[in-house]
């Protein structure tokens, strides 16, 4: 593309690109456009091969002049991927395999007939739905941070420009002073999407207030919560928006250098971001004298090696500096003394992706969404025992019930909802009693959990909450950087105590000791990882005390999830002596005589795998 080295050039390019994108979507260019999901989930399901196959078939069927094929960012409904969407009809096909490509080309592209089998089926009405906007999953969502994701090709700056890209930056550079940009973001009420929930504008203000020869803006893309992929999807689906947000931040508080810190486990995100940076440098949008103004900005990319603690901002800064990723004591805060001792703002990917929207649409529009103290929208990665596993973006204030039932499609298999874990390993569990809690930073904290970065894992009646706490504590124990005593040793002791509880060795004193460590951890750890490490325990203890007591007093796991506390028995009355269970048993723990004597499980040999139970056709085996 032509260099964009001045504001008029940018305006011209925006105009042209906008027309082109509009033409593509509406078919005004006389072509139909197929977009294939290029998010990590769909890529794992061979969407790249699907895209190649579609391209091949388009050529084979001589449709090259009539059809374009390219990939876009995540569609969100990941459990049903890979997705393709065909414009201008906006037909959405789901779970499309490579072998389905020919059917789509023949039927839809050539024959103009919708391939019914590949449409989304509403689990309740069993109706097939052809258009994305009619699928309940999408109905209550609003895409702000994900603006353009699943519409534009993340590798083409032209498409980003076509959907409003760099309008925010242009407004900042041409209409606003740096202080006005900070005010705009402060007024919008945008709070950090990485977990802390600190007002973004205020953070920028702190950095702006410090005199320094060099300042830095750092984008925290070290998303490490188990089950979270919000930042991954944003970086993959709309990398330019994050860069634009970073540039606006740099302009606002005076940083001329930006660092992306992205975990190396996100190869697609890293690749697209690298390309995006290169494209912008070539186009002249990044570098000296951005768009011909006095503002210069450079972007660097650093890869994280996978330590969860590097998501903590001071550990992240150490890591960028080439040091071991261990948190620093605060104060001084990074806004005063950050990267290489210079004032630095560390903002999360989603936060920065939201900034262009605020500048483009105005703070009032952003602030019109959400609750009093939590404005705008929030992206969640819905996972666990939920029908619609995937990526969602909802306005703040949406209730958990809406999130889980309306958008998430409820719990599979008609099981009962038990809890939703928000905030990842640092967060807590909320129960059925909390379902009408609005998604709001302060409301979630008040209920004993936290917003976190947006992981939301749903649990049903089969999940043991002690076991869940045990899982998270194992994770934290591994991921502690080892620097401070209460985290390094405290989490290990908590994990050992929880192991005692789930294996039937715990006592009520164990629970008391756990509380003692948890309380010092919460108040006395060096960084947020340690301070929140005990949250899964504290919140499950608070919300499900009876489950803990059942484990330590009765040595029972009410959810039958803790293997050491479960036993399998065969009801001799119901046993038909068919021997299937004995044959299924991997450790030969079941004995009997076929057709003559009922079967019995030798408890000393049983490994609690459940193979006998799932195999029995006569409901003769019980788990308790």
């Amino acid at each position, binding site marked *: 593309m032509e260099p964009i080295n001045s504001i008029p050039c940018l305006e011209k390019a925006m105009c042209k690109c906008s027309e082109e994108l509009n033409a593509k979507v509406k078919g005004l260019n006389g072509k139909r456009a197929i977009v294939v999901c290029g998010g990590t989930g769909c890529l794992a399901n061979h969407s790249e091969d699907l895209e190649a196959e579609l391209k091949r078939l388009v050529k084979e069927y001589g449709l090259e002049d009539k059809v374009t094929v390219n990939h876009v960012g995540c569609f969100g409904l990941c459990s049903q991927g890979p997705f393709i969407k065909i414009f201008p009809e906006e037909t959405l096909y789901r779970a499309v395999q490579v072998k389905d490509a020919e059917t789509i080309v023949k039927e839809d592209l050539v024959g103009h007939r919708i391939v019914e089998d590949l449409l989304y089926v509403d689990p309740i009405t069993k109706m097939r739905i052809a258009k994305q906007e009619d699928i309940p999953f999408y109905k209550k969502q609003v895409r702000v941070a994900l603006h353009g994701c699943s519409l534009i090709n993340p590798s083409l700056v032209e498409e980003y420009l076509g959907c409003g890209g760099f309008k925010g930056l242009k407004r900042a550079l041409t209409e606003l002073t740096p202080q006005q940009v900070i005010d705009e973001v402060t007024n919008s009420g945008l709070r950090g999407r990485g977990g802390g929930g600190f007002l973004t504008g205020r953070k920028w203000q702190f950095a702006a207030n410090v005199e320094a020869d060099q300042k830095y803006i750092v984008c925290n893309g070290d998303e490490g919560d188990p089950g979270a992929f919000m930042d991954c999807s944003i970086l993959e689906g709309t990398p330019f928006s994050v860069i634009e947000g970073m540039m606006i931040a740099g302009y606002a508080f005076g940083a001329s250098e930006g660092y992306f810190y992205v975990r190396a486990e996100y190869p697609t995100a890293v690749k697209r971001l690298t390309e995006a940076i290169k494209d912008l440098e070539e186009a002249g949008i990044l570098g000296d004298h951005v768009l011909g103004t006095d503002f210069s900005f450079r972007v660097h990319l650093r890869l994280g090696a996978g*330590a969860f*603690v590097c998501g903590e901002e001071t550990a992240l800064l150490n890591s960028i500096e080439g040091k*071991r990723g*261990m948190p620093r*004591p605060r*104060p001084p805060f990074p806004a005063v003394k950050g990267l290489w001792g210079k004032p630095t703002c560390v903002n999360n990917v989603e936060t920065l992706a939201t900034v262009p929207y605020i500048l483009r649409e105005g703070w009032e529009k952003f602030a019109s969404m959400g609750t009093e103290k939590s404005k705008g929208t929030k992206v969640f990665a819905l996972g666990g025992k939920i029908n619609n596993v995937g990526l969602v973006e909802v306005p703040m204030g949406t209730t958990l019930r809406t999130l889980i039932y309306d958008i998430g499609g409820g719990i599979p298999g008609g099981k009962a909802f038990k809890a939703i874990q928000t905030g990842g390993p640092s967060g807590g569990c909320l129960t059925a009693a909390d379902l009408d809690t609005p998604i709001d930073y302060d409301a979630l904290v008040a209920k004993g959990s936290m917003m976190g970065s947006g992981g939301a894992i749903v649990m049903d009646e089969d999940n043991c909450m002690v076991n869940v706490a045990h899982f998270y504590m194992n994770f934290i*124990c*591994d*991921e*502690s*950087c*080892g*620097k*401070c*005593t*209460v985290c*390094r*040793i*405290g*989490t*290990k*002791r908590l994990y*050992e105590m929880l192991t005692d509880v789930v294996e039937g060795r715990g006592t009520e004193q164990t629970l008391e*000791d756990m509380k*003692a*460590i948890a309380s*010092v951890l919460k*108040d*006395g*750890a*060096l960084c947020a990882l340690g301070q929140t490490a005990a949250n899964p325990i504290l919140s499950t203890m608070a919300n499900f005390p009876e489950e803990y007591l059942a484990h330590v007093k009765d040595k029972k796991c009410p959810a039958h999830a803790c293997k050491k506390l479960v036993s399998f028995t065969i009801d001799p009355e119901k046993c038909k002596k068919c021997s299937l269970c004995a044959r299924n048993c991997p450790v030969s723990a079941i004995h009997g005589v076929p057709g003559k004597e009922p079967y019995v499980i030798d408890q000393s040999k049983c490994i609690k795998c459940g193979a006998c139970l799932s195999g029995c056709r006569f409901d003769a085996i019980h788990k308790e």
Partner: protein
Amino acid sequence: MNTIQVKIEGRLYDVDASLSILEAARSVGYSIPSLCYWNGGHNSLASCRVCLVEVASAQGSRLVASCVYPVAWVGADKGFEIKISSPKAIEARRTSVELLLSNHSKDCQTCVKNGNCELLNVAKITGAKDNRFPGEKSKATYDDCAPGIVRDTSKCILCGRCVERCKEAQGIGILGFEARGFETFVGPAANRSFATSPCIQCGQCVNVCPTGALSEKREIDLVDEAFRQGKYVIVQTAPAVRAALAEEFGNKIGTVNATGRMVAALHRLGFYRVFDTNFGADLTIMEEATELLHRMKGEGVLPQITSCSPGWINFAEYFYPEILPHVSTCKSPHEMEGAIIKSYFAKTHNIDPKDIFVVSVMPCTAKKGEAKRPQNAANGGLPDVDAVLTTRELALMIKRSGILFNELPEEEFDQDLLGEYSGAGVIFGVTGGVMEAALRTAYHALTGKEYGPIDFKEVRGLESIKEASLDIDGTIVKVAVASGMKDAKKLLDEVKAGTSPYAFIEIMGCPGGCINGGGQPFVKPTLQPEEGANVLKEYRQKRANILYTIDEKMTLRQSHNNKDIIALYENFLGSPCSELAEELLHTSYVSNREKFPNLK
């Protein structure tokens, strides 16, 4: 000084606004337990969580690490109150210590740091309960392969003081945190031994370690064995030892010149002869000053760099092999003295040198390795020195034998061929001392007369780098002095680049010189409250003053006027740098750089 008003336990105090909470509290009479806090908080990682205090305000209360939290953030004007003894703070500090103890080997009775353990101290102060949180222990490493330092991670509390100390003092950073979570440990890269890492064995890490995780490698058993075998066990003591030994017996730092009692104790321990390494120091000056004059005449490269400090020699061999030709070939004083004992002394007394066992009492852990260098075995391959004890080990031997050190009379070193020593030798123990001693003799050699004021005060002081330009009868000699490798690097880089303006450079491995060596008595503010809050800033000067005072009181102030030295040259060696002197008193160096090609 900007002051700020803080409220501590309900009372208002005006404190220095630049301090941490811990330091501010210290200034008004509170000693908050701490472990990782060290050196005015400069090195503190805030990792141990033993110094937690509660900070309360209308917004609620929280715990903060008082060692790093700026008191300026919790001023009374903003409504904050610091609570050191609230139940929450006390419980938190106790829990931190209990957690540390739960992953500690707890073999306190037999631990080398018995009596000097800061963990044991905070356990006592915080009221830690035994075995409150029993559980698995981290995998431990025990490394005693290196000559001077032993690392036992089962006792390490990961405070990180050693990590910071190695960087601060030596600029090396041989130690770092490795692995993560519960298995995190501190050690050389990839958990290698000190013996196979570019560690210079200076022992500064040992001095700051709060527990028994780092210690000197003891050689008392070697001495015992020599006595058992009936050898002529001859001991010599380095100058810096007398400046600090009395501290091991409850005397305040800098108050007691221990020379006489130390000699008395060594006599009572049964050593065949008790000599002063100062004799060796005088000998070193004779050789080194002569070597310098040779170099100044164009025989060899300038600047000449001193070679008394084995930590520095290790550093040069690892990090600056290019400049080894600049390093004086003189052995260090105790090695010279050992070589003379096993030759001149042995010959004169008609003793088979094989039956002599030379023990050096040194303020140094690196000397242990120096004594084992094959280059330091002049008499038919016999090591010049057979065992090196640190000041701390000597104290232990004295205590072990039931000798009441403080009640001993003052006795003199044995006057037997190597008895006399000069004040010039004494000041070897402090940074700048070797330079000053050498200048006194070089002045004489160049001018044929004594330097009037005797003292070269230009090279005194504990700054890490000192430089001076001296006019010796028209010859301008530019000299520099550095201690601690981190700061010495500036001088060494100049030498390497060929831009060094100096003729003579003195380098000591430990900041401040031998008085602050890795084998000296521990200085632990929390265990020695009587030393005052500024002890870490003051102890080096206090020890140095003892040595300068001894020098001033001596009538013999120059090495070349030592009559035993003169006799040694007349009767045995011939002249400085003679063939025999080269054989016995000079050494060589090897580059170890190849072993670590990626060193920076």
